[in-house]
């Protein structure tokens, strides 16, 4: 407090010093799309560094999900929690990461309220780089969350047959999908008026999407009409692909399906996001 007042009042602008820093020199060329995106990614990292509490969401939440479902359903569905874990872990990892993608929308929405967003939008840079920066920061969170879940899973007795390659491959596929899926949230972040609305909308979409899938139980036990929905869900395809990778029996059909679906998300929601961003 005391330093604040002190520096605030003792400063007297020295015209010479100010004029000195105004000398423009040669303006550097504008940064490339890649370099601008990376710079915004650096900003996201810095924000994590300054406000580490925000990592709580992405670490505690997946942890609770994993423990809860393993012990809640394990005995009933697969005979024992350890048995069930072999089936559940790839799915719960996927679900947890997909669930936390919604924070992207919340972050974007929070920033819009602040003046800094205006400054970014008046810079002569590649327009999507601001938003890609958020997603790069988020990829770090998704990676951290994946590691947390994997470590907990291994400790509880998860033994993937696919080995290191299979597990890393599975996580990478989740990251690719989450990056693509996040464009849905950047769109809502720009579209909706408040943080709460973004949260509400995300939960409304995510709850049915993650639960009505093959994450917790085998879809063949469900009524026919529900199977149609579940088998069409991108989460089901993603989970099947991740399971196959982690089990060491890659199902390239599912993997391709996920990659194509991811590309579609980027194209459609990326375009809608940029349209909103430019018109905001």
């Amino acid at each position, binding site marked *: 407090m005391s330093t604040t*007042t002190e520096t605030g009042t003792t*400063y007297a*602008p020295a015209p010479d010093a100010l004029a000195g820093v105004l*000398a423009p020199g040669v303006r550097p060329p504008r940064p490339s799309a890649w370099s601008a995106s990376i710079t915004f990614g650096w900003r996201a990292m810095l924000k994590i560094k300054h406000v580490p509490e925000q990592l709580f969401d992405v670490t505690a939440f997946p942890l609770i999900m994993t423990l809860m479902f393993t012990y809640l359903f394990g005995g009933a569905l697969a005979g024992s929690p350890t048995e069930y874990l072999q089936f559940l872990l790839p799915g719960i990892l996927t679900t947890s990461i997909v669930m936390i993608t919604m924070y992207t929308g919340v972050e974007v929405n929070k920033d819009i309220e*602040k003046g800094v967003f205006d400054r970014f939008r008046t*810079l002569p840079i590649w327009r999507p780089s601001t938003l890609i920066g958020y997603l790069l920061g988020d990829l770090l969170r998704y990676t951290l969350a994946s590691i947390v879940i994997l470590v907990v899973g291994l400790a509880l007795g998860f033994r993937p047959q696919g080995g290191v390659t299979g597990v890393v491959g599975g996580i990478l596929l989740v990251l690719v999908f989450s990056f693509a899926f996040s464009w849905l949230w950047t769109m809502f972040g720009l579209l909706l008026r408040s943080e709460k609305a973004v949260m509400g909308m995300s939960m409304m979409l995510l709850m049915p999407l993650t639960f009505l899938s093959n994450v917790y139980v085998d879809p063949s036990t469900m009524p026919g009409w529900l199977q149609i929905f579940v088998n069409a869900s991108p989460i089901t395809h993603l989970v099947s692909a991740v399971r196959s990778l982690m089990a060491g029996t890659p199902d390239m059909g599912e993997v391709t399906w996920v990659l194509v679906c991811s590309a579609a998300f980027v194209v459609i929601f990326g375009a809608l996001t940029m349209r909103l961003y430019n018109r905001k």
Partner: protein
Amino acid sequence: MPDLAIQTSGLVKVFGKTRAVDGLDLAVPAGAVYGVLGPNGAGKTTAVRILATLLRPDGGEATVFGRDVVREADAVRSRVSLTGQYASVDEDMTGTENLILLARLLGHRKPAARERAAELLEAFGLTDAGRRRVKTYSGGMRRRIDIAASILNTPDLLFLDEPTTGLDPRSRNQVWDIIRVVVAHGTTVLLTTQYLDEADRLAARIAVIDSGKVIAEGTPGQLKSSVGAGSVHVRLRDPATRPVAERLLAESLDAAVYLEADPVALTARLKGGPTGASRDSAAAEQASRALGRLAEAGIVVDDFSLGQPSLDEVFLALTDHRATEEAAA
């Protein structure tokens, strides 16, 4: 004809049923401070946001240094900077990080960005604060880091949207000094403000806007003389003498006299003279003559002041004037 930094014609922006900007015509000469004066909700911020390429207009045209703000937005962006009404820096980051981030986004390489950040912090007296998060800064420091961020690449046109609203007098003076240096360097500044005093001190020309339109434009002197020469405030010792004083002031000043809520106070609103310079002396001369009349009548005056027109007065006078003209037309 001097070069124009900004030119708009018939600019319109509608939000729902509100016409925030409603046919705005501006011609801002390059190389000076141009003041945009108006009350809250007059459309100042909306106009600035359109000119800074943040909003698309719903009608009309706007160019910045001859480039269209919609079709050539990128060309405009490379020549302007905006310091918004709320700090346009990231509060969760330190002062240094903010400047490095923006320097990098403007294309500086990492070492150059770091160097530029350090020299700006130094010039703005923020070197010690550079390591702290902007969240912890005082209002004046926020403004300074904000302006520093705007001149990382010295822009040809700087938008300052109410840069001193909410600042204490000392911080306000610092901002004024900074603006003067920036303009002396050759940057055009578009300054929006609610304070006549601020526009008067800094701006070479002023546009007064209301309901999204320009209702008056000119040099500060022209504007003030167009609305009247200001007011004479008088405080009497004896409230019983007020009716006589009111009559004498009205006669000798040939002005409308208002009775204040305070039973001993009166205000006479002077009519404007033809030009700025003669106006001031004329007002002082008239006022001293009027005081003489009061003294002759045996009325004791405790206090007296000759005030410039306030924004309220300028504003009310301008809107009245416009209403009368419209009625006449």
